C-alpha cells in the first residue's frame, strides 16, 4: 500500500506558509492574545491571566487614548492636505521647466533621503526657543521680541510637528502629481480653452480629474505613514509637553515600554491598526473611482 503523501500544490506552498506563520502570524496571534491579558513586562507570569475585554473596555473610556487618537487623525488631515496642495503647486511649477527638469526633480526628492529621526533633530533645533533658527529669524525681522516657546506650547508644538512632516514628505505628492502631469495629453486642455474655460476652470474640470488617481496613490501611501507617525514626534517633543502632542504610537510605545503594560499597549495597537485600515480602504475606494473615470485611454 502506498504511503499517503501531501498533494504537490500543498507541499510546494508549505515553505511560504511556514515562514509567514513563523514571522507574522504567530507574533500577531500572540500579541492579540496578550491584549486580553494584563501582561506586564516586569511580571511575565501575568501573561497567563485572562481578563477578557477589560483592556479594550478601559481604552474606550480612556480620555488620553481618544485624545491621542483624535490628534493622530488631525495630524493626518492637516499634514496630508497641506502636502497635497504644496505638492500640487510644486509639481505644476516644476512641470513648466523644459530644461533642467531632471535636476529639479532630483532636488525635489532630497527631503525624502533623510531619516525621519534626523529631520526631527533638525526641526527640534530650528524651533528651539533660545537658539533656534525660527525665533532668530522672527526676531531679526523685528516681527517679535519674544522667544516664542515653539516646542513647549501644545498648539505651537503641533504646528512645528506638522511643518516637519510636511517638509519631509511633500515631495511624495509632488513626484506622483508630476508623473500625472507628464502623462497628461495636451489636447483636452486646449479643447477646454476653446470650450470657454478660464485657466481655473480648465484646472478644475480637466487637469484635476486626470491627476486625482495620482494624488490618491500618494494619499494612500502617506496616510499609512502618518497613521504610524512616531519618529519625528518622539525626537521633537516626545509627545510632550505633558502629553499635548501625544499621538497614537507615542502613547502605545510609552504604555508598552515605559509603563511596561504590554497587554494594554497591544490592545491599543489593534485599535490603531483599524484606523490605518480604514484610511487605506477609503483612499483605495477613491482611487478606484478616479481611475474608472479617467479610464485607460485618452
Amino acid at each position, binding site marked *: 500500500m502506498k504511503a499517503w503523501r501531501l498533494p504537490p500544490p500543498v507541499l510546494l506552498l508549505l515553505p511560504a506558509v511556514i515562514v509567514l506563520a513563523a514571522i507574522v502570524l504567530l507574533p500577531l496571534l500572540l500579541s492579540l492574545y496578550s491584549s486580553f491579558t494584563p501582561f506586564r513586562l516586569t511580571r511575565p507570569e501575568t501573561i497567563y491571566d485572562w481578563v477578557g475585554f477589560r483592556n479594550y473596555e478601559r481604552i474606550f473610556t480612556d480620555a488620553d487614548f481618544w485624545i491621542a487618537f483624535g490628534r493622530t487623525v488631525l495630524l493626518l488631515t492637516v499634514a496630508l492636505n497641506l502636502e497635497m496642495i504644496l505638492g500640487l503647486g510644486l509639481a505644476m511649477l516644476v512641470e513648466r521647466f523644459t530644461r533642467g527638469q531632471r535636476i529639479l526633480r532630483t532636488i525635489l526628492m532630497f527631503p525624502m533621503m533623510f531619516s525621519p529621526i534626523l529631520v526631527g533633530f533638525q526641526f527640534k533645533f530650528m524651533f528651539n526657543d533660545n537658539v533656534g533658527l525660527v525665533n532668530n529669524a522672527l526676531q531679526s525681522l523685528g516681527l517679535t521680541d519674544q522667544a516664542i516657546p515653539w516646542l513647549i506650547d501644545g498648539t505651537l508644538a503641533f504646528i512645528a510637528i506638522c511643518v516637519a512632516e510636511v517638509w519631509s514628505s511633500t515631495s511624495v505628492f509632488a513626484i506622483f502629481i508630476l508623473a500625472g502631469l507628464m502623462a497628461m*495629453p495636451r489636447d483636452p486642455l*486646449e479643447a477646454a*480653452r*476653446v470650450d470657454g474655460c478660464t485657466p481655473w476652470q480648465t484646472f478644475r474640470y480637466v487637469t484635476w480629474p486626470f491627476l486625482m488617481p495620482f494624488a490618491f496613490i500618494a494619499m494612500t501611501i502617506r496616510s499609512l505613514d502618518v497613521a504610524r507617525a512616531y519618529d519625528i514626534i518622539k525626537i521633537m517633543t516626545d509627545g510632550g509637553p505633558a502629553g499635548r502632542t501625544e499621538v497614537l504610537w507615542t502613547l502605545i510605545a510609552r504604555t508598552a515600554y515605559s509603563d511596561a503594560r504590554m497587554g494594554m499597549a497591544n490592545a491599543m495597537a489593534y485599535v490603531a491598526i483599524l484606523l490605518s485600515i480604514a484610511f487605506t480602504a477609503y483612499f483605495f475606494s477613491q482611487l478606484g473611482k478616479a481611475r474608472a*473615470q*479617467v*479610464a*485607460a485611454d485618452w
Partner: protein
Amino acid sequence: MATLTLSQLDKNYGAFHAVKGIDLDVADGEFVALVGPSGCGKSTTLRMIAGLEDITGGDIRIGDRVVNDLAPRARNISMVFQSYALYPHMTVGENMGFTLKIAGRDKAEIDAAVAEAARALEITQLLDRRPAQLSGGQRQRVAMGRAIVRDPDVFLFDEPLSNLDAKLRGQMRTEIKQLHARLKATVVYVTHDQVEAMTLADRIVIMKDGNIEQVGTPDEVFNQPASQFVAGFIGSPPMNMADAVTTATGLRFANGLELPMPPGFNVAEGRKVVFGLRPDDLYPEGHGIHSEGGHAVTTMDLTVDLSEPLGNETLLFVDLADKRFTGRMLNPRRVTPGEVMTFHLDLSNAHLFDADSGLSLRGA
C-alpha cells in the same frame, strides 16, 4: 455665424518664420480648406485663429471684432481636434454639454441642445458612455457634436479625419459636408489630404513654407494652378512634369523631343519652362476622357514600363522626355510591360510654369 478675416498674419517661433504675412477673407457660411505639406503653416494658422497660439503680427477679425488678443474662450469658436481631445472622465453627454455648462446655461437648456446635436449625429444611444468605450468614428462624431452644440461664429477643424481608417474617412467626409450644408456654418478646415479639401471646400487655400500659394475653388486650383507647387499638390496621381525650353513653334525637351505650344500659352522663344500634363490627359488611343477642349491632341507611340490596374482604370507608366510620366487608361484592358501603345497627349489641358519662379505662365 460670421466672416473671418486674416490680414498680414505673421508668426515667428524664434528665428523660424512659420507664417509669413498671409491675407485671407472667409465669407459668412463659407467652407475654406487649408492644405499643404507638413510644416507649411496651416495648423499654426488655424491655432492662431483659435487663440491657442499668439500672433506675431497682423490682425484676425471674426465678424467686426479684432480678436488678436482675446483668449480662446472669448472668440466664440469651436474646434475639432485631430486626436478628438474628448474629456475622458466625462460621459459623451457631459462632453458635449461642457461648453454650455461653463457658459452657465441652465440644465434643461443644455440637455435640449445636447439631445438635438446627438440626434443630428446619430449618437443618442451613446450619451451615457465614456470616450474610452467608443470607437474612433464614434469619438469623431462626439467631437463634432461638442463643436456644434455651442453654435459658434466659426468652426475650426484640425485634420479631423486623419486618425480614421480609409472607409470611415470617406463616410465622415460625406457627413461633414451634409452637416455644413445644414448648419450653413463658417468653416476653416485644415488637412494634408487634397481629396478632403477638393470634396469638402468651397474654396481651397494651398500653403507652402508659411505663404499662400493659391486661393481658389476646387475647380480653379485643379484646372488653373497658379504655380508648379499647386499643380503637383492637387490631383492624384500628381501632375507629370518635365523641364523644357520654348522654341519658335513650341517646346523642346532635354532629350530632343519637341511638342507644340499648348493652347492658351504665349511664351517668348528660349525661355526655360516646366511642362506639366495631368495623367488624365495622357491616355492610350480609345481609352481617354472626352475633354471639353480635346482638340489639341498630339499622338505618339510610347513603351509602357509598368501598369497598375485599379479595376475601373489602369495607371500606365511611360518614359517621356526622360521622365517617368503617368497615364490614365479608362475602360482598361490588360497591358503587359514593354508593350508599345499609341498615346494621346491632350495639350489643351497642359500647363507651363516658369522654371525659376515656378509660377504659371498662363496668360503671361
